[in-house]
């Protein structure tokens, strides 16, 4: 079941990420989609807060992959924005890193063929100056997870 949420600001988007973190377990894969400025990094910052990570989350666009280990579960934050091919993505060995972490892949739909079928896809759409639509789309075994908790 797809869950639709509205965000009126960056801090709203962050709060949605924080709420989602309560559903996340080690080994989970979250695919994050949205244009530049949609609030992807704020969303991941919220997930990090919720996982008890005390480091400041910044965009991994330049370094491709960042790992935060100060929380309850390690968070691996990947951005494939600068990646040119599936082979380059697989070279990052994200799979190995993700086995014991929560893996969030920005622009992950571009490398969907190299990601597990069991993942949660999140689409952040710009609907106004600060308004965003945040859509949570479960795939694979995520369809059996209690996503409806997110809309309460």
């Amino acid at each position, binding site marked *: 079941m797809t869950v639709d949420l509205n965000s009126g600001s960056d801090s709203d988007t962050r709060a949605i990420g924080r709420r989602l973190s309560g559903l996340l377990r080690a080994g989970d894969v979250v695919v994050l*989609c949205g*244009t530049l400025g949609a609030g992807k990094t704020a969303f991941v910052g919220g997930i990090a807060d919720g996982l008890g990570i005390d480091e400041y989350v910044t965009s991994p666009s330049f370094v491709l992959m960042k790992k935060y280990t100060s929380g309850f579960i390690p968070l691996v934050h990947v951005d*494939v*924005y*600068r*990646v*040119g*091919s*599936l*082979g*380059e993505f*697989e*070279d990052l*060995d994200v*799979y*190995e*890193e993700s*086995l014991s972490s929560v893996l969030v892949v920005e*622009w992950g*739909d*571009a*490398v969907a*063929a190299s990601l*597990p079928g069991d993942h949660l896809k999140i689409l952040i759409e710009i609907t106004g100056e600060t308004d965003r639509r945040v859509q949570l789309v479960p795939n694979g075994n995520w369809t059996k997870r209690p996503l409806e908790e997110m809309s309460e």
Partner: protein
Amino acid sequence: MKVLAIETATPASSIALGDGRATVASAKRVDRQGHGGFIVTAIDFCFDQAGWNPADLDAITVDVGPGLYTGIRVGLSTAQGMAAALGVPVIPVRSLDAIALRAATGHRHIYAVVDVRRGELAVASYRPVPGGVVKDGPPEVMSPDHLRAMLESDAGEVLVVGDVESLPEATFRGLHRVKSGRPRYPEAAALLDLAAGPLQKDEFPSPEDLRPLYLREPDVSIAWKQFRQEGPWENTASA
């Protein structure tokens, strides 16, 4: 002939030094993600134990896969770096060959398997011959179900070696002619044996031409135009 063997293609990393007749020093560690932290310390340790210097080496042999991507690259880049500094050749060896070589059987048809992630395996089959094994064909990537079908259609006695424990239990259920056995992972000492032949015949590629053997699908460019207006990110460094 002094040879350094670097094995980091699977969760079991190992280093060995051989003098052409025997293994004179070795070190081993099992950790899916620990290759980088192990390798240099282990090489130092082995040189120390053997009383050799890196400058004594005549060759390096390294496992180029298939196996864990990061592990393979850690091993291969270390081998290439040392080879460049020392001016020695690098002999590439395959993980499946190293596993099959140590399979303990005199007559069974050997299937070596390596877990290549995402529920798939790299598989190659071998026949035992006096003093070693002979490969039937090139390795293939397949699902556990496909492996089961292959084993079912094999009319002879079979021994499956390698990372059998990573397979679903049902893979071997009811297959009475099939036994599974050791080794689970390749070891550096086996690389020394596999490298001996090519080294004697002077048959090896230039170290800088070596690439990891992932056995994955041919690489596919990302069609960025489908995902964002501005298309692919331009690599200004090469412009």
